């Protein structure tokens, strides 16, 4: 039922229904924004990527297969938009902030930071993911945050299933190094 409701929201939003758009954005914008941050490893591109994702979704409404869920479909579009943003960032050859300001040291494990709350240790996951290669980031995000299967990830990224498995393996090895203070 939620599926049908989402689809009707998507169609109405695409036709300019502000209420439907508000409901749709309320339901997905936060999640897509979080994903965009984790896929790019930075917050400054995330807003643009989410905007492009919604615009592409409205443009491609006709290609939406009804058996898919709107959330999965939007995520697939967002993964492509994030990859495109990364490529155009690469072409512009900007210098990452971390290089200018002597940011994250790639080989050092992350020190747990206390945020003063009862949980004590807070993990800045975007900061962690920024230290992975874009390809490792993609598989980790789709597997750990989105709960996608290997086959779904392979389809979303257009790579063989075996590539997904090996990237995921290496990405997790790297994360275990980076997060050893959190994991012990």
């Amino acid at each position, binding site marked *: 039922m939620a599926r049908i409701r989402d689809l009707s929201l998507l169609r109405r*939003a*695409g036709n*300019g229904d*502000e209420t439907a*758009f*508000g409901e749709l*954005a309320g339901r997905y*914008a*936060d999640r*897509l*924004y*979080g*994903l965009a*941050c*984790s896929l790019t490893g930075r*917050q400054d591109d*995330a*807003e643009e990527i*989410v*905007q492009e994702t*919604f*615009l592409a979704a*409205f443009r491609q409404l006709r290609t939406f297969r009804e058996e898919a869920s709107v959330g999965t479909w939007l995520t697939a579009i967002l993964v492509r938009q994030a990859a495109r943003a990364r490529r155009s960032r690469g072409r512009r050859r900007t210098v990452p902030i971390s290089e200018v300001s002597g940011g994250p040291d790639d080989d050092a494990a992350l020190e747990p930071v206390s945020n003063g709350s009862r949980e004590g240790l807070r*993990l*800045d*996951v*975007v900061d962690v993911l920024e230290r992975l290669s874009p390809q490792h980031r993609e598989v*980790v995000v789709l*597997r*750990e*945050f989105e709960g996608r*299967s*290997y086959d779904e990830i392979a389809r979303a990224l257009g790579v063989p299933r075996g590539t997904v*498995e090996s990237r*995921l*393996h290496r990405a*997790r090895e790297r*994360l*275990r190094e980076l*997060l050893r203070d*959190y*994991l012990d």
Partner: protein
Amino acid sequence: MSTCPETGKVAAYHDGELSPDEHRRMERHIEGCRLCSRELAELRRLSSLLQSAQLPRMPEDALERLRARCARARERSLVRTAETFAAVAAGIAVACLVLFYREPSAQPSGIARIARNEVLESVVLSAGPDAGLEANGEYVLARWMVADLSLENGK
């Protein structure tokens, strides 16, 4: 340091990617294998650490900008559609006029021919300068038709 040939499959087990049979077999193996059970425990800790982390939330004003940008894009696409319709309609009008004036029974005088071409030009121009990209294609096509028509009438 000892190794286990099955450790490489622990991740697929953890991710629920094994067939039911293989999953049960692996489950029994892990129970009896210290290396694989440690590997599984580490994968589980990593997953729950990542999944417990808060991803950034979309700022309130970013949501407003998203709404505004989608509304603008929609308006633009409506205008483009309207322009394309107008241009196509003008094209059809020109085509109708062409057919009408080609009727051999209606041989026009010189003055009438000039007047007719003015009508055609005005029909075409009304769809012309302000139209978008697609509409502009229609405009060029209509111009060709007028040029073609003038040649034929003039011979």
